[in-house]
């Protein structure tokens, strides 16, 4: 199995997940969780495709999808920040609503051809031995996903507003004491994060999985994105790494299926879900008491090293992340 085409395939298929993961990380970092991701990805994919088809242009579709995402972020923020309703409740209702809206409004454009992103190889760079086909022979959305990853990382670690976001996520009371309008910050990132998720949806229906149908095929991806954000410890680079891992798994699935035809076809597509549970278990393990008791028996040198690894795996969720993940 040739690694280069595999890597190219993974990079090509990753942008939707990357945008979604980046968007949700930003929103959750400020303290708002958008549980409607799964439905939102479907709805924004459908809207992106339908709008692109109606306007005859891909950028129009992308804009429409991002608007849909932003709207969802706004509703979630409004319900939880202004109306003080439970984020999990609102998010869950929205995910069902968005999914149903996507199917209802998308029926006219199901199985219908429409505009797509065209490949945009970078001249000269595309001839490089490995990097060429993998990175520089892709479409504009792939390049955008790489830029977005770098941009979000730079924003969070190097800029003043990024520092404010990190502060709001860590200790909103302290941020408020320093004059930060915490509610306004949360609204901003919920909406911006939603828009990024919408971009992810458009990346599906206009590039990776062109068109629309019912079922679309990405059902369940939104939930995996939420888990990746947790597993990534709300750090954009870690989350994007998780995104690539997930897409790799999916791509490998189709490859492995053809190599192992006797395995039931349901196994590979379902594999991400038990793995998601396993990943979350791992994160919980890092915090658990009996692991620390077991470590106590080891010699202090080994114990220190293991503790440092564990601390890296530990989950430090942003404050007031809608009591949904409070484990006692």
């Amino acid at each position, binding site marked *: 199995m040739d690694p280069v085409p595999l890597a190219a395939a993974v990079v090509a298929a990753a942008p939707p997940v990357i945008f979604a993961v980046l968007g949700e990380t930003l929103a959750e970092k400020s303290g708002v969780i958008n549980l409607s991701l799964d439905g939102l990805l479907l709805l924004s994919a459908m809207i992106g495709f339908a709008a692109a088809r109606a306007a005859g242009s891909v950028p129009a579709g992308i804009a429409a999808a991002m608007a849909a995402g932003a709207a969802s972020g706004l509703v979630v923020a409004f319900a939880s920040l202004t109306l003080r309703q439970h984020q999990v409740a609102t998010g869950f209702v929205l995910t069902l609503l968005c999914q149903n809206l996507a199917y209802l409004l998308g029926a006219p454009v199901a199985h219908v051809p429409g505009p797509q992103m065209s490949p945009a190889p970078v001249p000269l760079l595309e001839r490089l031995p490995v990097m060429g086909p993998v990175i520089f022979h892709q479409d504009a959305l792939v390049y955008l996903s790489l830029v977005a990853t770098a941009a979000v990382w730079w924003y969070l670690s190097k800029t*003043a507003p990024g520092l404010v976001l*990190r502060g709001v996520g860590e200790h909103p009371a302290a941020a408020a004491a320093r004059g930060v309008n915490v509610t306004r910050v949360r609204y901003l990132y919920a909406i911006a994060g939603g828009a990024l998720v919408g971009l992810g949806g458009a990346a599906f229906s206009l590039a990776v999985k062109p068109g629309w149908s019912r079922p679309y095929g990405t059902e369940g991806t939104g939930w995996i994105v939420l888990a990746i954000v947790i597993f990534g410890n709300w750090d954009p680079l870690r989350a994007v790494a998780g995104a690539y891992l997930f897409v790799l798994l999916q791509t490998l699935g189709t490859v492995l299926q053809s190599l192992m035809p006797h395995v039931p076809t349901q196994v590979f597509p379902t594999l991400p879900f038990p793995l998601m549970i396993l990943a979350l278990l791992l994160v919980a393990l890092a915090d658990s008491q009996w692991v620390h008791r077991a470590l106590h028996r080891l010699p202090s040198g080994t114990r220190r090293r293991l503790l440092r690894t564990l601390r890296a795996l530990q989950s430090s969720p942003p404050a007031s992340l809608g009591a949904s993940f409070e484990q006692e």
Partner: protein
Amino acid sequence: MRVELKDIRKSFGAVRANDGITLAAGEGTIHGILGANGAGKSSLMKILSGTLPPDGGEIVLDGTPVRFGSTAEAIRRGIGMVHQDPLDFPSLSVLDNFLLGAPAGLVPRRAHARDAMSALAARFGFALDPDARCDQLTVAERQQLEILRLLWLGVRVLILDEPTTAISPSQRTQLFTSLRAMAAEGNVVFFVSHKLDEIQELCHRVTVLRQGRVAGEVSVPCDTRVLVHLMFDRELPRAPRPRIALGPTVLELTELAVGDTLLTLEHIFLQLSAGEVIGLAGLEGSGQRLMLRACAGLIPPIGGRIRVGGQDLTGRPYGRFLAAGVAYVPAGRLGEGLIPGLTLAEHVALAEPRRTPFVDRRLAARSAARRIREFDIRGTPGTDVSALSGGNQQRALLALLPDRVTLLLMEHPTRGLDLESAEEIWRRLLERCAHGTAVVFSSSDLDELLDRSDRILVFSGGRVAPPIDARQATVEQLGEMIGGKGF
């Protein structure tokens, strides 16, 4: 800058926290704000720092009346407060904490800020590593960071709210030296405390508050009795401590080791007799809570043995500890000790042994009414516990204890309570001691520890000193041990 507070008023419901307070502090002075718990010091300083708006009165800076809508606005005017619990960002670096919230463009000027911070630190004798993570600093260092940040933002009036609660004596000396240097440069320092000796040592003048009003203002140093008289309107009575005959061994800890992700305690030995009172002393986070929770059976020990009343309960589930007569009363009343949203009667139903799978609500209500009368709780059986005041919640926690308790573990039993309520709590605790209950309690009030304990265990940096006799110990000795001496 000259600061004047004129006729400040603030009420919370029926409680008049500040009832017409007037005071003034001139440039270059350290002004103490002294008072017992609940006298109104916190509210007053919150008003001055912009955290709360006053109901009446005004703040005058250099002759101009000002209004703040927020702490940020107050800082822009030059007034900043360092809280008891520093409001900072633990996982961010010291430099990031310094920068966060300061006016900046898209990209902050880090090199510039770094230099400014070291210059300020050097001027006041602080030493902070800009790249260290904030949660690796001691409480004293976090205070220093906050002070530097406020000074950098142009604050000329610094308010410190009980800054010495969680720092060692040597750090305290450092802090006082730095504060004197700041005052010498023309800044005003407000020093809020209930500790007489510190006020005497540090301040130029002190305003004494009592029950929301100014009881008096004097120059310092002065005769301590004057201050006490102003604070309490009477001499502080020291209730004589009765000697209780000790009974059989109730708790035995052998080579106990207990830990969590942050801290590990090891090699703890203790033997506790019925009727005995043990106080746990030390800075917040030194392991007292760990030990209490381990003795309660909430955390399984990593090593060693726990025996309660002769039974080896090491590693056994919490329910077995409860059955053996162990009771744990946490510091967090609502949300830890009491269940918000549930009524007193429902708590009683949970506390009393159940005979059938069905809840007899009338019986629970009757039993709750009886306990309410006995413990003088302001509430009814149908009252939601989150509607009770702090003092009444503490009474409720005591009222919910079983009749016979072998070992009573209490975290900060009188924190946030006024003197009379605190006295009442201890009266009830001593009653139980007379009937054979052993009490282990943690506290940050050195006087309480010395007055109420038979023996004291001092915790410092994850280590526990062998128990010292409370009747022989002095405040100085205790304070030094907490600061790390002798470990």
